[in-house]
């Protein structure tokens, strides 16, 4: 009797006695709460609102005339040749710049793993430095350097002068290899020396060691860099955001959306375009993740039950 009473009393004092796990989960959620609130208010709801907006013909200057037009904006996209070519432009931007960036970053990282290189830390900082230079400065440096390039290279070689932004793209790409280079380099550094030694004993040359050991071992880093670049090509920014150059973005689709949004003030259509871009990007990302199972090496450690 006493024991039962005592337990009833305890139940009254602590009506819901949480198990340790439940308590841990509660405290954990408390720590997560800033991000969860921010996610709901600043990401999830705006994305939903953008979707609803994309079903209307909302114009910034005439909000009272807004009508629900269903999928009209999405259908308009298929008739809008300019939007299509800009989306294609973003894709080809990804396909052009990413190989260039990856190859340069890979070669540089491979060179930097050699202990014979002097002043490695300083050179790395120099290479990384160009990636933190604000877009504003890069744009100005590019335009201002055109004159010198003309005077020193193009005129003596009798080449036609540089037209517009033709060289801006490769220039920007090369000057943004910092994060990718660093990720790939640190992955290369973490490959254990024993594997290389074993391969050397088995008679593998430097090239074979690079192709058959280094590349597979650093494939997670390559994969991560690919995802970063994909996001960058469609107007997201991972790790380093260097800002924008006025309304001009290097991602064609993004500039086009900006144009529809701010010049034509057609917010409904702009939202629809943003959603289409997002959908294309997500499907490409899912494709990348699916393909990752074939070529990315995941170490079998205790990380199995994690994402």
């Amino acid at each position, binding site marked *: 009797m006493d024991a039962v009473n005592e337990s009833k009393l305890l139940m009254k004092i602590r009506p819901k006695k949480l198990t340790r796990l439940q308590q841990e*989960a509660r405290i954990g959620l408390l720590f997560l709460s800033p991000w969860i609130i921010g996610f709901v208010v600043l990401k999830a709801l705006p994305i939903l609102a953008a979707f609803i907006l994309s079903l209307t013909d909302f114009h910034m200057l005439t909000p009272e005339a807004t009508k629900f037009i269903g999928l009209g904006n999405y259908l308009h996209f298929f008739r809008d040749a300019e939007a299509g070519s800009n989306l294609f432009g973003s894709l080809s931007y990804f396909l052009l710049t990413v190989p260039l960036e990856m190859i340069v970053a890979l070669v540089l990282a491979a*060179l930097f793993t050699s202990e014979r290189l002097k002043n490695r830390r300083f050179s790395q900082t120099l290479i990384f430095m160009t990636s933190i230079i604000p877009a*504003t*400065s890069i744009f100005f*440096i590019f335009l*201002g350097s055109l004159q010198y390039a003309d005077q020193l290279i193009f005129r003596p070689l009798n080449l036609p002068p540089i037209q517009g932004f033709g060289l801006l793209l490769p220039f920007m790409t090369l000057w943004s290899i910092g994060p990718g280079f660093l990720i790939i380099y*640190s992955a290369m550094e*973490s490959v254990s020396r024993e594997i290389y030694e074993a391969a050397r004993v088995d008679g593998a040359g430097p090239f074979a060691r690079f192709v058959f050991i280094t590349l597979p071992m650093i494939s997670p880093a390559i994969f991560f860099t690919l995802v970063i670049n994909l996001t960058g090509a469609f107007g997201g920014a991972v790790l380093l955001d260097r800002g924008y150059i006025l309304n001009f973005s290097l991602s064609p689709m993004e500039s086009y959306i900006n144009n529809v949004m701010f010049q034509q003030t057609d917010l409904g259509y702009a939202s629809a375009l*943003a959603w289409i871009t997002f959908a294309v990007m997500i499907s490409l990302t899912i494709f990348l993740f699916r393909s990752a199972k074939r070529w990315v090496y995941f170490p079998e450690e205790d990380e199995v039950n994690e994402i």
Partner: protein
Amino acid sequence: MRFNRKPSRGRDASRLTLRLWDFTGTAMLNLFMFLFLIAYLSPLPFMVIASLTPHDQFLDPNAPILPSKRVKFNYEGKDRIVYQVPTDQGIKHWALYKPSRQSSQFIDPENLQAGPILWQGQWRTLKADYEFAPTLDNFKDFFAIAQIPLYLKNTIIVALISEIGVLFSSIAVAYGFSRFRIPGIKYIFFLLIATIMIPSNITLVPTYFLYSGHMLNWIGTWLPLIVPHFFGSAVLIFLLRQNFKSIPRDLDEAAMLDGAGPLRILISVILPQSIPVVTTVALLHFFYIWNETRLSSLYLGISPHLQMISFAVQRNQTYFFTPEALMVGAMVVMVIPVIVLFLSQRFFMQDMIITQIEK
């Protein structure tokens, strides 16, 4: 004997060649890296040169590359430009005295007694003499027009306040992700990664509406640039979580046995071991605020006195599209991030490392 000697000599020789190869390889590698860095960073010296160059020099196609000014010679109280004049006795450096279309009068600075010399030919086709003379006038003009101290102050205030917010919230959230067993946390973390990939365009219109006079009325203030950071930043949370996870749990458990609560563990166990990554994250956020142009153009457009440095300089420079003005603007905007990077390279270069990509 014979077997003993030959291989040893051969080994010596091969060791020598090996060392020679080694040396050549090292030299080649370092030379290659040196040349690569020179080519890679070559626009930067041009930036410095152009910013010190007077504007007139860009108009003269025959002008030298380095910043310089025209050589002048004072004659009869007036400065006269010195030209390279081709004569029968070779090229003479004469000052232009009386220009006219077909023939002009020149003064020979070394032979003043001769007086004005008549020279047949068009003086406009002559090359002017230049001497090396860098000028700071471009910077003076720039600082006279752009209120750099004001923009600098604005940027630093916004950076500091949002830095506090983003560090507090991101550290707390990363701690939550790395140390607690929460049902479904896998999916919440996946959601976090997914938000990194959401293009900013898609949320731009609804968030603008949220901050506009219809709801919060924050347009023309710094709040839209600061407050979102108090909810954490997905990329920074990701980086911090990676690092927190690598700290062994034994330390937590020891502290827990001593009666420390979760917050106590975060402050006295986790954070002291994560100073490098926290510094990295703080720097990343600083660069983000420094480079920010889109939100400041959108929300601060109506209050120029609150404007941030990147956008203000960018807008300013679009009116002065000359090479030297552009380069001055570029230098002003990039100099502080670059200094910060070099001061912090030890932390920064080591902890932007994502070793394990989990799936």
